[in-house]
């Protein structure tokens, strides 16, 4: 029965099909005729994909119910023992087969002429923001199937093919264009130009769902309508179509919101020792409170919304976000909010102090003062060449929004003529009277220097020699006055760890000294909460064989290591250890990938217990301790897990 | 055979009458086969059920017999009573004519005169045609 209907359709539409096939073959032959002229070839392919297939599909679809109308065979067809849904599907299957046959012929060309695939310049599409798949134009195939479905669904309603074609062009081209326009607008989150890798799949999903809406409405109109009543058919179609269209659009929105996009998630995470951790994801700013074991959503944001600058201290959080009104109107905005999420205040941008902030300069880096009253800001103007630079890069903003101060430029710090210069605010030190900055330059000789900018005197002073190359800086110690630096003198010198005390401005070498003669610190250090001890991983050479790794606890007061423990052999696992002290200073937690879990040691480095990673967690990367909880990052999947060290349970926060 | 669908006489009655008449006039003899229901129905363009009913009633009356698979035949008993049946049949026909005439309040002599006239006309017609 289905087959009888199917083949009848082929017989009826044979003329139309071969006509379309003829045109396609002509276009393809032209490809070979113009073998030498690449630009004509390009244009022809473009014409085939963007013009021929859409119109071929529309014309095929519009012919769907033409025979029944023209030859007056409705009553005959309906009085046969066959369901109306079957009738619809058999027709659609036949039309789809014809379209597929056309595509197969095109695919044969695609396969036979490798030169075709090299045509990459798709100017119009590039302007539309579409990125093409490299091999097969799936989007064109899907668009043609979409148009076929729309035209066929509508062909049920009217006997004149031309009218159907007209309406189908309208619906079939207007709807996708409308969806694309929404995706370019604020309502659609500017998806098309902010995350095009998400835009194209969303667009295609929309086409599929809308096509299904048309088809469903058409089938139901065919099955349920009373053909004897005037206009019953059209009303029936509209009545079914509207709710289905709403569902299709809702489905598209759901897809856009809920499907993960590689790179669409991000996790920017940092922690503070007051038992709270703050992190930024594509959804906004979150606070995790260890005491309450609760995540609080402090600031909602769209995926494009957040800048990378954020800091928290003294019960407040400052962060930047982008306020996008349109493609040409994007502004960076600086917000301050209390740690409990209340009192959110815009202190810079989009209507606030706009004339005080220089044009075309963004916030590179910011630091909140320990009392939470001020925010130190480093702008991107330091990267401009000295002549071009208009504004000094350092600013001081008051968290209550009352003042914005431009700090005088110090040419010694910022006036570097060399090609590449990178500056970062490190910490507020000396009871909040100065800020520490690190500066790196290149090309060779590349250099590293540490500077202190006195907020009172408004001058900068270099602390560490320019001839020192530093690998990394540790976080500032819990009391805010110590900083560890891993450095080497010159390019060939041994790596050493030094601790800088801002109260005395004295530097003490830890390794490379009598206390730690052989090894070098290979991982970031962790300050014990009271600040008298540090934990780190040391790498030591052997007489023969690969280097070995040791976990070390070092006392700053006694100036010697208190405990050592030999750890795993592989370097890769060792790099990830991230030894961290718990808040009470009683334990050190280590992330051991080879052991597939957290290992917990006492201060004497005797292992007290292990907590295995949960099976669903990806490869763990970073470890931070907040109160009695460990936060583990997974940079592969961009997720954040927390482990309750007492209860030994895991929960995924993001 | 011909039936008049618009007559008040039911079709099956007309069929029965026709068969009886033929038997009475000797056109159909004992053991002669009757046309099958289908053939007769198709020929005179009537519902086969109607033909079937006529045959059924004739069978009940004993005029025909039906043998499954072989068809219907004039029953054997018809022959000895042929003479009587003819009289009975013709008598019935004449009774009907008389009843019709009575409807118009015709008297006996009028009826008789009418009959004689029809007889004479019939004789004239028969003389003009070869026997």
């Amino acid at each position, binding site marked *: 029965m289905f087959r009888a209907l199917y083949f009848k359709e082929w017989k009826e539409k044979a003329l139309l099909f071969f006509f379309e096939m003829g045109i396609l073959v002509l276009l393809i032959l032209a490809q070979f005729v113009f073998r030498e002229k690449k630009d004509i070839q390009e244009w022809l392919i473009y014409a085939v994909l963007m013009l021929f297939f859409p119109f071929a599909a529309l014309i095929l679809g519009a012919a769907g119910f033409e025979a029944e109308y023209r030859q007056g065979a409705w009553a005959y067809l309906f009085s046969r023992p066959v369901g109306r849904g079957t009738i619809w599907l058999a027709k659609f299957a036949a039309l789809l087969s014809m379209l597929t046959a056309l595509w197969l012929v095109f695919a044969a060309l695609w396969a036979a002429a490798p030169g075709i695939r090299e045509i990459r310049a798709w100017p119009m599409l590039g302007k539309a923001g579409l990125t093409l798949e490299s091999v097969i134009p799936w989007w064109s195939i899907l668009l043609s199937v979409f148009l076929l479905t729309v035209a066929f669904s509508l062909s049920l309603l009217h006997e004149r093919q031309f009218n159907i074609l007209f309406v189908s062009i309208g619906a079939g081209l207007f709807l996708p264009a409308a969806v694309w326009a929404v995706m370019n607008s604020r309502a659609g989150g500017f998806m098309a130009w902010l995350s095009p890798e998400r835009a194209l799949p969303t667009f295609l999903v929309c086409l599929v769902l809308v096509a299904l809406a048309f088809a469903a409405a058409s089938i139901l109109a065919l099955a349920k309508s009373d053909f004897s009543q005037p206009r019953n058919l059209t009303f029936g179609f509209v009545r079914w179509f509207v709710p289905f269209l709403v569902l299709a659009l809702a489905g598209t929105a759901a897809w856009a919101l809920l499907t993960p996009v590689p790179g669409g998630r991000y996790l920017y995470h940092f922690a503070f020792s007051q038992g709270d951790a703050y992190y930024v994801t594509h959804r906004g700013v979150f606070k995790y409170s260890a005491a309450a074991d609760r995540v609080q959503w402090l600031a909602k944001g769209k995926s494009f919304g957040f800048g990378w600058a954020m800091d928290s201290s003294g019960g407040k959080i400052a962060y930047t976000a982008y306020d996008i009104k349109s493609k040409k109107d994007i502004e960076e905005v600086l917000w301050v909010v209390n740690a409990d999420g209340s009192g959110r205040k815009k202190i810079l941008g989009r209507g606030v102090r706009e004339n005080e902030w220089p044009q075309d300069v963004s916030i590179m880096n910011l630091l909140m003062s320990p009392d939470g009253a001020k925010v130190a800001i480093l702008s991107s103007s330091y990267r401009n060449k000295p002549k071009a630079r208009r504004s000094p890069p350092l600013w001081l903003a008051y968290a209550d929004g009352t003042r914005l101060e431009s700090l005088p430029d110090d040419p010694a710090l910022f006036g570097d003529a060399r090609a590449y210069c990178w500056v970062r605010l490190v910490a507020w030190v000396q009871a909040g009277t100065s800020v520490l900055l690190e500066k790196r330059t290149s090309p060779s000789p590349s250099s590293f220097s540490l500077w202190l900018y006195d907020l009172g005197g408004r001058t900068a002073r270099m602390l560490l020699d320019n001839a020192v190359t530093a690998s990394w800086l540790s976080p500032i110690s819990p009391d805010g006055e110590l900083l560890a630096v891993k450095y080497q003198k010159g390019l060939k010198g041994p790596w050493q760890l030094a601790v800088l005390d801002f109260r005395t401005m004295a530097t003490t070498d830890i390794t490379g000294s009598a206390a730690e003669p052989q090894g070098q610190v290979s991982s970031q250090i962790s300050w014990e909460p009271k600040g008298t001890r540090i934990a780190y991983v040391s790498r030591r050479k052997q007489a023969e064989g690969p280097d070995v790794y040791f976990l070390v606890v070092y006392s700053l007061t006694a100036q010697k290591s208190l405990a050592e423990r030999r750890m795993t052999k592989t370097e890769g696992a060792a790099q990830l250890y991230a030894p961290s002290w718990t808040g009470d200073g009683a334990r050190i937690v280590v992330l051991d990938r080879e052991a597939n879990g957290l290992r917990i040691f006492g201060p004497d480095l005797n292992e007290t217990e292990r907590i295995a990673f949960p099976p669903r967690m990806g490869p763990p990367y970073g470890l931070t301790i907040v109160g009695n909880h460990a936060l583990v990052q997974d940079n592969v999947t961009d997720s954040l897990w927390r482990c309750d060290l007492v209860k030994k349970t895991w929960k995924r926060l993001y | 055979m011909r039936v008049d669908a618009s007559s008040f006489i039911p079709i099956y009655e007309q069929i029965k009458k026709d068969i009886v008449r033929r038997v009475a006039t000797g056109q159909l003899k004992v053991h002669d086969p009757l046309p099958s229901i*289908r053939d007769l129905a198709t020929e005179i*363009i009537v519902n086969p059920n109607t033909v079937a009913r006529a045959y059924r009633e004739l069978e009940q009356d004993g005029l025909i017999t039906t043998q499954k698979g072989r068809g219907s035949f004039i029953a054997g008993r018809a022959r000895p009573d042929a003479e009587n049946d003819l009289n009975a049949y013709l008598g019935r026909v004449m009774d009907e004519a008389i009843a019709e005439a009575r409807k118009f309040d015709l008297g006996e002599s009028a009826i008789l005169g009418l009959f004689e006239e029809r007889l004479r006309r019939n004789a004239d017609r028969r003389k003009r045609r070869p026997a």
Partner: protein
Amino acid sequence: MSELLRIQHLSKNFGRKPVLKDFDLTVESGRVYGLLGRNGEGKTTLARILMGVIPADGGEVSYKGRRISFGDSAYKREFGYVPEDPFFYEGMTVRVLLDFNARFYPRWDRKRAASDLERFALDPKSRVRTLSRGMKLKLGLAVALAAAPEFLILDDPTSGLDVPTRQDFLRDIIRELAASGTTVLFATHMVHELERIVERLLVLHGGRLIVDEDFEAVKARYQASLEDIFVSLVADKA
């Protein structure tokens, strides 16, 4: 005689105008039903509702005891339909049409169809649109009968045809009746055909049946021709 089709309280409106109103009918298998009615009074509507072409607004139809509703299609395998307007795909040839139609009916008899074509002198290669009205009618009958239907609906098929053609048509119906005992619903406003073959008389007026009786009984009671009976029944009451 078993009950083949039962129609109860069937109703259908076109716009606000009621065409069928509380229509009841029980069809017994093997009998010929003649449905008389004036033009536009609902004969075709009834046929279309029974064939599932249009839906009824109210009421119930049961075939062989099972309720049939608008979307059902299986029961149509046992129904034959010869409508007033020839309604095939005009572009198909006779052969193609028969082959196409055959695929829908499990009981389709190819030989019967072929012999009917010969008998009707229909050229299998001719296109439907080139056939005369009478030929299309015969084709319609061939198409309906080759599927060996249990129930045959004839919706005023003979209107506009000359007498010999009508007689041929009737003969074919009768042949079919004699061979398979098909139940027939013969809807028409032309009474001549009905008198010869109908067993049960139905008269449709005002949306429902005003007569549903054995034909012989009606004739005996009225002592008039069917034509006269019909006219008197459906005359507008002054």
